[in-house]
């Protein structure tokens, strides 16, 4: 499937030996694979058709560069075309000067509007020092107002709500309330609705006309399929929205819907939601999603995440130490803590090229670290620094202390020894070089 796309294209071109130029014939075979890959990623059928045609037009007759194989060249074209369609760069929400900025959220039921209202409010409070106000304009879904209020309480952000049956009135009053309370950012959380529900769509149009929000954001579930084009086109036609938030990107969907939405509306994707926690929102990067769609991993996000959460001095200390002497259980513990700060192991592995999609079937026990920590905590200082001390009776004591079995402790010791062996090998190559490559540079070179 997808993660093998590059490999598959390589092998296709290998079978077509001696062809140094991309021809109609060899491109036909490879584009068939690309088409399947895009369809599997939920890119809309018609969008795929257009996309493939554009890549074909561009690729035919192109001379193969010395350093790239034809397969790589086609991947390069596809990647570039994906990035281009996805908007090229990042796009954010412009804040108004002098007057409060009003953002209106809209979208289908269950796409994540309420959660992302809260995430955005918190994001802008942190980034721009905004004083946000969230407005509960979903008067239909049972307990939707309670949900926003609960989130507001968690974040300590005020929520405006009132017992009215008219959404426009609520929003008008909310604006008044914001003025009195000097809120400079107002986010309207509207009810989820079907794009074909005329009555409900008209409600949004009325709110738009009355309030004139500076930014209308369409919230879309990244797992959405072919219908993404219908929904997005319809919402855009009615509301002419300004941008898109793609939610639930922490799942294992390819996010091909983003491409469809972008193609039919021409509107930028501004943010992605990456988890249930209220700080899990990121600015959208087209190149990263292009890589995800192509199954090439998201190394950039990973490095950024690592840089964000890595304690630089701790990392350096560890690096210096490993360079000179053996790794101890204390170091192991320190390392586990660093990794845990970066988030779940799985979400990190997902960003690695070539691993991402194999994870579907893989079960990663996030609790494994807890067990390891328990075992190490049950060792004495001496034992942690001198692993060779661990004999039968000490192991038994550790087993009792940590509530694990002796086998589990043996397993950990074995893993630990393997790690040490690896470290010794790394030392031979020169750890410094490696560490510089990993943490030193701002980001590794782009794949192309």
């Amino acid at each position, binding site marked *: 499937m997808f993660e093998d796309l590059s490999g598959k294209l390589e092998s296709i071109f290998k079978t077509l030996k001696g062809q140094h130029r991309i021809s109609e014939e060899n491109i036909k075979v490879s584009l068939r694979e690309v088409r399947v890959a895009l369809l599997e990623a939920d890119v809309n059928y018609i969008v795929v058709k257009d996309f493939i045609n554009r890549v074909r037009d561009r690729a035919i007759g192109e001379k193969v560069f010395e350093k790239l194989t034809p397969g790589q060249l086609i991947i390069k074209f596809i990647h570039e075309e994906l990035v281009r369609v996805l908007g090229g760069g990042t796009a954010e929400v412009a804040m108004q000067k002098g007057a409060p900025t009003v953002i209106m959220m809209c979208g289908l039921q269950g796409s994540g509007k309420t959660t992302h209202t809260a995430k955005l409010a918190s994001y802008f409070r942190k980034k721009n020092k905004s004083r946000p106000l969230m407005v509960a304009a979903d008067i239909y879904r049972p307990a939707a107002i309670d949900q926003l209020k609960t989130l507001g309480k968690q974040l300590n952000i005020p929520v405006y709500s009132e017992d009215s049956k008219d959404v426009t009135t609520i929003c008008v009053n909310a604006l008044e309330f914001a003025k009195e309370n000097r809120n400079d950012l107002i986010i309207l959380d509207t009810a989820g609705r079907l794009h074909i529900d005329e009555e409900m769509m008209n409600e949004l149009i009325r709110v738009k006309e009355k309030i004139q929000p500076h930014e209308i954001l369409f919230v879309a579930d990244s797992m959405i399929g072919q219908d993404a084009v219908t929904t997005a086109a319809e919402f855009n036609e009615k509301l002419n929205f300004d941008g898109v938030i793609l939610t*639930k990107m922490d799942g294992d969907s390819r996010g091909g819907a983003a491409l469809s939405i972008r193609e039919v509306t021409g509107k930028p994707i501004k943010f992605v939601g990456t988890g249930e926690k209220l700080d899990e929102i990121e600015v959208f990067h087209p190149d990263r999603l292009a890589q995800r769609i192509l199954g090439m991993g998201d190394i950039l996000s990973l490095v950024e995440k690592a840089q964000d959460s890595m304690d630089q001095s701790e990392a350096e200390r560890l690096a210096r130490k490993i360079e000179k002497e053996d790794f101890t259980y204390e170091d192991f513990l320190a390392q586990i803590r660093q990794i845990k700060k970066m988030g779940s192991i799985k979400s990190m592995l997902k960003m690695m090229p070539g691993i991402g999609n194999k994870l579907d079937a893989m079960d990663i026990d996030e609790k494994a670290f807890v067990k390891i920590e328990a075992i190490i905590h049950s060792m004495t200082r001496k034992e942690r620094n001198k692993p060779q001390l661990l004999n039968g009776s000490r192991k038994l004591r550790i087993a009792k202390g940590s509530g694990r079995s002796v086998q589990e402790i043996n397993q950990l010791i074995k893993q630990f020894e393997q790690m040490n062996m690896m470290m010794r090998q790394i030392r031979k190559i020169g750890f410094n070089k490696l560490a510089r490559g990993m943490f030193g540079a701002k980001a590794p070179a782009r794949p192309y």
Partner: protein
Amino acid sequence: MALFKRKRVRDYLEEADIELSDVKVETVEVKPELSVFEKLSGSLKKTKSSILSKLGSIVFSGKMDEDTLEALEEALYTSDIGVKTTESIIGEVRKRSSKGEDINDVKKLVYDVIISMLDKSSGPVQVTAKPHVILVVGVNGNGKTTTIGKLAHYYMNMGKRVLIGAADTFRAAAIEQLEEWAKRTGADFIKNQPNSDPAAVAYDSYKAGEARGADIVLIDTAGRLHNKVNLMNELEKISRVLKKLNPDAPHEVLLVLDATTGQNALSQAKQFSRTSGVTGIVLSKLDGTAKGGVTIAINQEMDIPVRFIGIGEKKEDLQLFDPEVFVRSIFE
């Protein structure tokens, strides 16, 4: 973008004049001010401009040829049926039809092929125990809580006593949302504090159901993405706790799938089946323009029948799954 407008499943349900179960009587009257005919002609007008209605006329008019197959392919893909299943349907149609064959025969063939793929999906929902425990699982935002409200209504209309357990203790105000549904339907309701152990809520719900003589115990769970191991383990724990009370419980595990979901639904079905032994699917949000075709792919790969479809936000908007209507809605 009229190009992408499509007809709603509800329209097909009406067109097909299918047997409505006792619950569905109210469902038919969506907008009482419009007659059924007006509604239909309105939606037909809407569909006239649609590429897919044109497509429908390509597929089902004239003689069988390559264009027909391509149009068929497009209809299948845009219904989220997916590459593998679409290819196998097209392959089957190619094999069993010949060039120039009358289109009506081909049409029948296509229906037969797809319906045979869905044959596991018919058959009634059976109540096998007292209390009959139904655990409802799925990813975030696909309509689990609403579906539970509708299921409560469905069973209460059958004269059953229903108890709802609020084991989504995570999402803000999920308990309040479900409580509102319990009020609307008149079902019994069991809850605990937000962020308490969902397995404990499941336990309490079963115990209360038993004590109060409930026929059906519906247990809501928090939405979770299927690739989060810890959250999936939590589901396993709920099942384990229920099994201690009754080895057969939960008697049914319903996976709610959002009909707008694309190929990722396959991954959802696989992961949820692995951790909680899904016994049936509820296809929600079929009142939009999405077709939910990925369920055909799921049926191809796994032995999970589709039990119900959700077609609106009201308590009556739940219907038994009918493969024929479902297939018709893909093409016409």
